[in-house]
């Protein structure tokens, strides 16, 4: 069973979007193109207002991902947990579809007696360990996020540490919004390691607006661009593989 590459957008924000398209709709669009959207809301002493909370949950729900609202200090642990949880969720979906083909009807893992679920879980575990993963991180750099950015950086480094312990391949990209000129700015191109963030992050300037929707839209096109480039390469790989067989 090959679930291909898992694609995720990880949105780190502290409140409401206030410009451009509806982020919930953009998340739904992402889901349609096979990309999961996870959202982490970063709180301070006070809680996030209700509207912000609703938006965070809404984005994750329509993006088929996981959301979590946390205090800045527990960000590291949350970022890696949310990413993992979303991965397992997606893989479970893949395995469930596969099971439905075998068993027919709308049977899922949950319909199997507990004794038989163990083996299915082992497949999910195995996939989670080896599957290729692409995570595009979208960081909200509106003015209120300014002093949380060092924590965000730490959390992202921690995420790459966690995921690089897997045997599967990882690719990370980092976008910030609002950017200097546009709504979104690319900070880091696809890379397996996030260490280079250490030098880039302190130079970030923070802006006033929060164009969450446009940021997600832009992130989507970025996945596509990469896929088209990669597509050529991987096709070559396959041919080579066939020949060697």
């Amino acid at each position, binding site marked *: 069973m090959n679930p291909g590459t898992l694609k995720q957008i990880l949105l780190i924000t502290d409140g409401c979007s206030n410009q451009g398209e509806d982020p919930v709709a953009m998340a739904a669009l992402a889901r349609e193109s096979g990309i999961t959207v996870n959202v982490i809301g970063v709180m301070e002493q006070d809680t996030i207002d209700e509207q912000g909370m609703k938006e965070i*949950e809404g984005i*994750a*729900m329509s993006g088929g991902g*996981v*959301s*979590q609202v946390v205090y800045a200090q527990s960000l*590291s*642990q949350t970022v890696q*947990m949310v990413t*993992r*949880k979303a991965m*397992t969720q997606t893989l*479970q979906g893949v395995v469930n579809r596969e099971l439905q083909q075998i068993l027919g009807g709308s049977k899922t*893992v*949950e319909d199997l*007696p*507990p*004794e038989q*679920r*163990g083996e*299915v*879980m*082992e497949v*999910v*575990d195995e996939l989670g*360990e080896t599957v290729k993963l692409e995570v595009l991180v979208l960081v909200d750099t509106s003015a209120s996020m300014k002093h949380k950015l060092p924590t965000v950086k730490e959390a992202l480094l*921690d995420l790459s*540490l*966690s*995921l*690089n*312990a*897997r*045997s599967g391949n990882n690719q990370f990209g980092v976008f910030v919004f609002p950017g200097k000129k546009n709504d979104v700015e690319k900070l880091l191109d696809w890379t397996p390691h996030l260490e280079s963030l250490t030098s880039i992050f302190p130079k970030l300037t923070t802006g006033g607006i929060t164009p969450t929707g446009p940021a997600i839209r832009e992130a989507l096109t970025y996945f596509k661009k990469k896929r088209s480039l990669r597509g050529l390469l991987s096709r070559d790989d396959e041919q080579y593989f066939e020949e060697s067989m």
Partner: protein
Amino acid sequence: MMNSTLKNLCRFVPGTIIIGKWHQNRYTILKELGSGANGIVYLAQFHNQKVAIKMSDNGMSITSEVNVLKSFAKVQGSSLGPSLIDVDDWVVKNHNISFYVMEYIAGPDFLSFISQKGKGWTEVLILQLLSDLHTLHEKGWVFGDLKPENLIVMGPPPRIRCIDVGGTTIQGRAIKEFTEFYDRGYWGLGSRKAEPTYDLFAVAMIIINTEYPKRFNKTSGGMNQLREQIRQKTALHKYERILTNALQGRYQSAQEMRMDLLNCMNSQTSPAQSSVTKRQTRPTVTQTRQAYRKKKGGWVETFLIIMVVSFLYFFYIYSQV
């Protein structure tokens, strides 16, 4: 989102009766024992027996833990994790809640036990823990989320037991679940790959934790900060070498760390004993020196023999001609 729904779904008042969908067993909830990111554990009554039930709306995490417990059950005569009694689903309000039932391990957690019974117990419990970890590692697992809250001291006689196998991972994979203070990745001292050294790092942090019950935050991180924290507590000085070794991943196995800890304790039990060991070590030094001298003598001997033999051979050849 996940957590709040989980909490609403799985919160039940004492007296609630759980009936399994597949095996029809009846459990009565007595009280909540604890809750974590992946579920809630309840104490429950099953026939005349007290059992612990872990439930979660995420069936997969339950299944995954059941897999671990089942594989532990195959290890004979060991006390790795609680023993598994039942796995089932419970349908409540049209929701499927997966749960598993395990042996109820009663007792205080590691840190409360030590604060009640005294620091003298630290070493005993750590030694017990290390031998359990050794068995676990030999079976190809790494415990992962090792922390005082996950260690219960049963007894009497006091015996340490690991509960919560949510972080238990097959060696070579990425650690499933961890807690920052006990995680070597957090301190910048290694990867999150499941290796025996990962657990041994956590054991060292647990020992440090006994002197810092409130833990401490990462400032500079790395070995420098941890070494400084160890030096600030006199009670930790005797373990300094062992702790640094474990923190830097120098012990290849739990057994090795256990032996080292055991030796360290024996050499410290009384000053008289330690002088004896010193006296014993001195002769060994002279012995090796003698051996070295012998070796030198040996070289001379060999050389002489070769000389004599070749001389005789030369003489023999000469006489033949």
